């Protein structure tokens, strides 16, 4: 087995008496789309927050391509090649799609202590931003509007484009399908399928259809720990998973 791109070992997070992450082990291989599923309150968001660096774990290690990243600031992790999208999109609402993506492009190009040149007229920012918006399929006509005026699905597209601007090796996708309509969901599925093989992805998702269609491997999280990891078929047949999760929601 190749060295994992992301290796989480013995991750622990306590909130008072609640063990939100209970010695979690998780590995994402290079180019793999790895889905993280589990019932509500299983600790998926808590795990993502620790991996991205917005929450500090109480114990355990998180390695990105072999490098320990727990001590690193969330922004430094982006520079190491780990980008993310949010369950509830976090964008600059007054700004356009172009501006939002251009900000991520300028972050990749180095520090932003540049005080003179007009950033909106800088082709070094505009050209990559446009290309990324093409890639996620946001129509040209929507790119000059304030993001706050766009639909939920369009904002999800913009967030994905901004994440790709970091040229990530690993992409953390926190419920990218949540709140999307059928057509939008299909479009997102296709976009993610196109990234498979090139970028490792950790996908947190409730849309089981999308998960089983996309994932190379699936990990099932219950009460903060991983109870099973395997291919879609293995997970479908796993008795522990059926008992804990799939039986109620999916009737498998």
């Amino acid at each position: 087995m190749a060295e994992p791109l992301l290796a989480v070992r013995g991750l622990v997070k306590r909130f008072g008496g609640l063990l939100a992450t209970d010695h979690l082990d998780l590995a994402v291989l290079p180019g793999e789309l790895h889905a993280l599923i589990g019932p509500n309150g299983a600790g998926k968001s808590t795990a993502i927050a620790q991996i991205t660096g917005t929450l500090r774990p109480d114990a355990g290690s998180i390695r990105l391509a072999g490098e320990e990243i727990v001590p690193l600031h969330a922004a430094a992790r982006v520079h190491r090649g780990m980008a993310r999208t949010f369950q509830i999109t976090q964008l600059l609402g007054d700004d356009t799609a172009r501006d939002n993506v251009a900000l991520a492009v300028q972050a990749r190009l180095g520090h932003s202590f540049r005080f003179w040149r007009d950033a909106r007229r800088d082709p070094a920012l505009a050209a990559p931003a446009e290309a990324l918006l093409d890639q996620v399929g946001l129509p040209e006509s929507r790119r000059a509007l304030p993001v706050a005026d766009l639909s939920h699905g369009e904002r999800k597209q913009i967030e994905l484009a901004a994440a790709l601007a970091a040229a990530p090796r690993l992409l953390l996708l926190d419920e990218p399908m949540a709140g999307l309509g059928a057509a939008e969901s299909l479009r997102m599925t296709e976009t993610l399928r196109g990234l498979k093989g090139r970028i490792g992805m950790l996908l947190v998702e409730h849309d089981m259809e999308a998960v089983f269609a996309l994932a190379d491997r699936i990990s099932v999280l219950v009460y903060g720990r991983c109870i099973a990891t395997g291919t879609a078929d293995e997970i479908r047949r796993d008795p522990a998973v059926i008992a804990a999760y799939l039986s109620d929601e999916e009737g498998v």
Partner: protein
Amino acid sequence: MREHPARERAALLLLLAAAALLPFLATALGSPATVPLASRIVIYGIAAASLNLILGHGGLVSFGHAAFYGLGGYTVGILYAHLAPGDPFLGLIPGSNQLAVTLPAALLVGGLGAAAIGALSLRTSGVQFIMITLAFAQMLYFLFASLSAYGGDDGLSVRRPNLLGPLNLRDPATMYWVALGALALWLAFQRRLVRSRFGRVLEGIRQNEARVVASGIRPYPYKLAAFVIAGMGAALAGALMVNAMRFVSPDMLHWTKSGELMVMVILGGIGTLLGPVLGALALVVLETGLTALTENWQVVLGPILVVVVLFSQGGLAALFRRRPASDAPGAAGGRLPRLLSWRRRHG
């Protein structure tokens, strides 16, 4: 909507040229007292614009901006106090009455003060940040109030204002032109800054810090840099004000001064280029006009502020802004609004 920086620049220069004619107008109208009043407005405009950089563009609600304004003022005052007796400040730094020396010194002192206060305050956010900036500014206020060597509570007179080469700031018109030049340079600098990559980060921090972090940018160094730049702007204003008033006192650092600057920004139009200057104009004119009517002028000022804030979201600058429906290039009144709003103009 497309921006027209060239047209906007032309309109700004026209406005500046008109403002430069004021001393002649004042002489012609036989109202020489207008010139020092205009100097005060212009200088407050610089201070308010600098606060707007962090408050309006960075979303950092600093309630201690007067600290840097006062530091700039005291730099000029203390350098002057050491000039005549000839004993250097701290035994090292000789006194000076040359603006070419005192102004950079004020910028340096204001910048260092902002670096120290900002480095600590910016580790907090929200209400904590408001309170800690207020606390630091009040500490400096009490420090200067107790410095009896420099007048303590009573402040310090600067009997002879600074010289700038052959120019003497004692002349009200010269003082006004120097202040106006400083305002123009400051606004031009800030206009550039806000549009640069640095400005984009700052604007991002105001709107959504999580987005900035997710983009791979640590906000803290950018916040600190903006805080220092804003502190230097306030110090510039303070240094000029002491020359205009020929007096420096701890009142320059008092928290009510921080409040006044904040009122100017909000009244004029937060996050706009000329809004803070408009706010300074409105506040000084209201204060001057109302004090002539009643001693308790603030009783009248309060309700006016409430009305402006309630009914013109975006401050006075918003009154000049066109509605989105008529938002087409070349429409009547198309110049000024663009100067006053560059943030929400995509609609």
